[in-house]
């Protein structure tokens, strides 16, 4: 096919190559079994690199006391091991942090499959290695074939020994180079006998159990095959990256169907091998039905552990939801995802449910005609365990009690009816059926089944001849009673299922309601703290756990910002370390995760495009955090919280920006005002006073100078007073001392203070004598009125009239002050109350300070009043109106 489309390099392949850059290179020395000389080869390679000038550090190498290996260590820089205290035992461990700090070019880290001492950062050494690689350090390590996760089953089958320490296949895939250390079995056995592998004494048992020739041969073959298939992989990747035509991976997939059976993990491993061999991507899926919710905890854990394993082995994992018909749900999904092969476990015999419900596997086999279906058998021994742990039938004494109670009540109802002979005895069966149905709907499957059986016995005892015995005489009765039992069991099962369904629906409804509730809560909040609290509550309520939100402080340290029910007094160092790790690596850490699992808290990164912080969760059962179902829910909730936080932050940032710009404008205005309004009067004062120093000044000039100086000094005084008032307003330090007061008295005192300012105007105060008293601080309102009067005197021509009027409105007294000045243009009437705003009109020079009316508004609004500027009567001049609240004191008697 010569079209350009196909010749282009596959993007995934290019990405893969790109991803490898900037990271350290991983080389694995792979052996078929212990003792083949991996460590030796590893050290030799390291010495070679060191001679080439590479900065080589031995992170950790186990020599197992082998002399020739130890000799190779000489001359290489080795990191001291970390001493850890575990249950009073001093244990040594590879020191990850020391290596990251030392940051060599190449690090030797032996035994990739090693499980770390509890209390270390990671559960497994391979996780340490990943972190080292991510830090850009090359790593050389060693691994035995039986530790590869997907080969775990096969190795166990070959050798009869199941290795507990495994390394996920993705880690092996990540290796840039794998070198197989091959040693023929005979030679290895020879080395063992010479004591070169294990010290003398332990050797006999080791040989018996593991180091047999057939075992070693099989393992060797397995190792060779693994490396060979990897070479294929490498070739393929190279071809794709360089856009060579060749075999292209199909889009087909394998679907591994997992249920709560103990087989699940084996099924997953089989799926992995199958996918590997066929070079297909694979999906592990489970179906959650109503029945699933009713399963015991242990059974559900089987499913979740299997899914986790699948994830570790590189599968995509999916949880499907179905009311019933898990098989159909799986098939619909499989078709949608272009799955061609299904992998299922061998159907278990499910008596007594088999009669009423078809096992999922059977249904799959029937319906999956368009798929290739592989059935994986259980290992012997495990199948027995599977049968013993039949899910759903967790019998307890309470179930039996409900059964007895149900049967007893039914009997109490049925007996009198029977004694009175109202209906023939076989019809009484209906009453018992009702009891079964009721118990099933109310208390679930098992009580319903218990009730069925007890009702069956009761009916037999009371109503079949001979009565009051469990013996049955007539064939008719036998048929009837057996039919009853079958019917009751059937009814009970249905009712129990119904109840489980209702319970599931309630749970999911509750979750939906919570999500909705959170969205609603958060939408109404604009304060970050409120949103954080809502988030903490939401996490805690949805997941039924304690929750914490940690965010980086200004210094970059993570600190608790919110928690539900509350933040912790002090987080222990393990939890803090997990939180930090989760935040820095943008991956979950702590309880239920492979990283720092000894922490009681699980931490999930809280991130949108940017890392915001972490959410901490503490479950009563720390394993709940590992359940993929719970993890998915955590993910959903975490996403919502992160988005809400991000949104609030952006809103706050925007608000801050606006406030800052506004503040900047005010500062500029204040500086202008200070330089102009403060200095101008001082110029006049100083000028007038220095003028007075002259000896030969005529008396009239002296008087004129004194008057000018005095007027300007007073102007300065008023200005300073206004600045002070403004500052008090701005800083919220203004607290009106409100009393019941007569507005006319305030006006009177304001006028008296402004005697000289108002002397060239005619002031008419037309305030009704019966004006109700107002609730105000007389000093502040007096100042507000004085400011308006002063403005009027400044702008209105001398000799004109300033008119004060007042009337009682619905909620207060409205005072109006009208002058006969030039008026304020309509567009500016609202702005005149803004700080530092001055009306400029025509060639008039603005003489105000831009403070007076701003203070008026500040003072009036501090009284919950309002102030506005209007055109004067007939459109001439200006009217300022202010509403002032009425006093709640009873009016004075006339």
């Amino acid at each position: 096919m010569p079209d350009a489309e196909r010749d282009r390099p596959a993007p995934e392949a290019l990405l893969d190559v790109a991803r490898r850059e900037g990271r350290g290179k991983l080389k694995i020395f792979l052996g078929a079994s212990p003792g083949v000389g991996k460590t030796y080869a590893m050290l030799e390679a390291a010495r070679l690199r060191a001679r080439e000038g590479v900065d080589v550090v031995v992170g950790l190498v186990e020599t197992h006391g082998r002399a020739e290996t130890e000799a190779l260590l000489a001359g290489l820089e080795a990191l001291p091991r970390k001493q850890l205290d575990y249950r009073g035992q001093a244990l040594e461990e590879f020191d990850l942090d020391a290596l990251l700090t030392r940051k060599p070019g190449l690090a030797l880290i032996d035994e990739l499959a090693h499980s770390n001492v509890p209390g270390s950062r990671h559960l497994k050494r391979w996780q340490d290695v990943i972190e080292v690689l991510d830090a850009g350090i090359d790593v050389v390590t060693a691994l035995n074939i039986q530790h590869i996760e997907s080969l775990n089953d096969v190795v166990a089958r070959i050798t009869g020994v199941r290795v507990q320490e495994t390394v996920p296949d993705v880690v092996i895939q990540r290796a840039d180079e794998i070198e197989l250390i091959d040693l023929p079995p005979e030679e290895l056995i020879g080395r063992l006998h010479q004591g070169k592998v294990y010290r003398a004494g332990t050797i006999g048992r080791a040989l018996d159990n593991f180091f047999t020739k057939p075992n070693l041969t099989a393992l060797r073959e397995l190792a060779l095959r693994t490396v060979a298939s990897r070479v294929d992989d490498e070739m393929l990747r190279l071809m794709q990256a360089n856009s060579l035509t060749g075999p292209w991976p199909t889009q087909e997939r394998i679907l591994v169907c997992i249920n709560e059976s103990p087989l699940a993990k084996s099924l997953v491993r089989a799926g992995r091998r199958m996918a590997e061999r066929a070079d297909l991507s694979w999906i592990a899926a489970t179906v959650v039905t109503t029945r699933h919710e009713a399963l015991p905890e242990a059974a559900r854990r089987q499913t979740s552990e299997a899914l986790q394993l699948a994830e570790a082995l590189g599968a995509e994992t999916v949880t499907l939801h179905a009311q019933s018909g898990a098989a159909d749900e799986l098939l619909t999904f499989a078709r949608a995802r272009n799955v061609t092969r299904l992998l299922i476990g061998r159907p278990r015999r499910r008596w007594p449910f088999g009669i009423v419900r078809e096992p999922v596997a059977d249904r799959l086999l029937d319906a999956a005609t368009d798929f290739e279906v592989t059935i994986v058998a259980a290992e012997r021994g495990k199948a027995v365990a599977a049968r013993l742990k039949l899910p759903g039938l967790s019998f307890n004494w309470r179930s039996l009690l409900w059964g007895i109670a149900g049967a007893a009540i039914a009997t109490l109802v049925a007996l009198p009816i029977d004694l009175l002979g109202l209906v023939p005895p076989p019809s009484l069966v209906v009453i018992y059926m009702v009891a079964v149905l009721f118990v099933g709907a109310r208390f679930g499957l098992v009580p319903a089944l218990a009730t069925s059986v007890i009702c069956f016995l009761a009916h037999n005892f009371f109503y079949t001849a001979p009565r009051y015995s469990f013996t049955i005489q007539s064939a008719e009765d036998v048929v009837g009673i057996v039919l009853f039992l079958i019917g009751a069991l059937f009814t009970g099962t249905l009712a129990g299922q119904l109840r489980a369904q209702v319970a599931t629906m309630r749970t999911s409804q509750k979750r939906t309601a919570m999500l909705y509730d959170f969205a609603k809560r958060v939408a109404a909040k604009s304060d970050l703290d409120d949103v954080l609290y809502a988030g903490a509550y939401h996490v805690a309520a949805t997941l039924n756990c304690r929750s914490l939100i940690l965010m980086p402080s200004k210094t970059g340290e993570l600190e608790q910002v919110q928690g539900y029910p509350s933040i912790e007094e002090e987080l222990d160092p393990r939890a803090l370390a997990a939180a930090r790790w989760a935040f820095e690596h943008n991956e979950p850490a702590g309880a239920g995760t492979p990283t720092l699992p000894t922490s009681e808290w699980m931490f999930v990164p809280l991130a949108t495009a940017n890392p915001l912080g972490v959410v901490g969760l503490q479950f009563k059962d720390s394993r709940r955090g590992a359940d993929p179902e719970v993890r998915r829910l955590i993910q959903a909730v975490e996403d919502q919280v992160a988005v809400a936080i991000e949104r609030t932050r952006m809103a706050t940032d925007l608000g801050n920006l606006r406030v800052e710009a506004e503040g900047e404008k005010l500062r500029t205005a204040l500086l202008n005002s200070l330089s102009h309004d403060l200095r101008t009067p001082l110029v006049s004062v100083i000028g007038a006073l220095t003028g007075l120093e002259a000896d030969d000044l005529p008396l009239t000039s002296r008087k004129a100078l004194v008057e000018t100086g005095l007027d300007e000094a007073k102007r300065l005084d008023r200005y300073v007073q206004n600045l002070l008032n403004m500052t008090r307003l701005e800083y919220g330090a203004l607290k009106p001392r409100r009393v019941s007061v007569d507005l006319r008295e305030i006006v009177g005192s304001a006028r008296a203070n402004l005697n000289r300012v108002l002397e060239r105007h005619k002031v008419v105060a037309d305030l009704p004598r019966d004006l109700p008293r107002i609730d105000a601080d007389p000093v502040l309102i007096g100042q507000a009125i004085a400011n308006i009067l002063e403005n009027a005197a400044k702008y209105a021509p001398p000799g004109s009239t300033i008119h004060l009027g007042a009337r009682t409105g619905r909620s207060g007294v409205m005072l109006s002050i009208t002058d006969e000045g030039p008026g304020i243009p309509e567009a500016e009437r609202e702005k005149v109350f803004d700080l530092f705003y001055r009306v400029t009109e025509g060639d008039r020079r603005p003489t105000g300070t831009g403070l007076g009316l701003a203070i008026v508004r500040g003072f009036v609004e501090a009284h919950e009043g309002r102030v506005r500027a209007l055109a004067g009567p007939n459109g001439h001049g200006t009217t300022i109106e202010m509403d002032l609240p009425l006093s709640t004191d009873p009016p004075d008697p006339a």
Partner: protein
Amino acid sequence: MSGTRILVVEDEAPIRRYLRIAIEGAGFEMIESERGRAGVERAATDAPDLVVLDLGLPDMDGKAVIAAIREWSHVPILVLSVRDGETEKVAALDAGADDYVTKPFSTQELLARLRALLRSRKPVEAKAVLAFGDLIIDIPAHAVRRAGVDARLTRKEFEVLAMLASHAGRLVTHRQLLSTIWGPAHTEDAHYLRIAIGHIREKIGDDAADPKFILTEPGVGYRLLG
């Protein structure tokens, strides 16, 4: 007025210098003190006829100075207060100060207050009939006339007006009026006074919004313009 000695307690030297010019220019003798404690001592040793006291002294609270002087002396005390110091002003008046001026003040205003305070030391009974423009207050006859027309005041209203008149030009606080006329138990019943003043204003034809006679000092008291 020669021989009248005024003690100025004020920490700001420029203000003291300017006050000396004004006070001595008006014909009074001035002695001065920079600190409250020294001021109290001088008030005791030099027997001034009036004390001008700044409320913002560095060493002692103004109210404490007033209280110390009031322990043994009825000398009139004029307080210099800053604007916005309403609470402090009232506290000073309650502690025994007689009047106040707000900084900055004009020389004329200060001298008017000083004279009003010095005048009030003389017994009021000596002048039984007081005249303020066309307002005539005949104390022995309990009669008030405005522009020749009788104003019929109740007994309490007359007592309030008479008290303001005998302190003409001076501030009379709510507390002083209430405790003198209604008795010490009624010092908090400001509405008694409010109603009485309202009636007096109405009867003598004064307007609260444009006062000719009775000026309201918001939150503090009243002053009869004299």
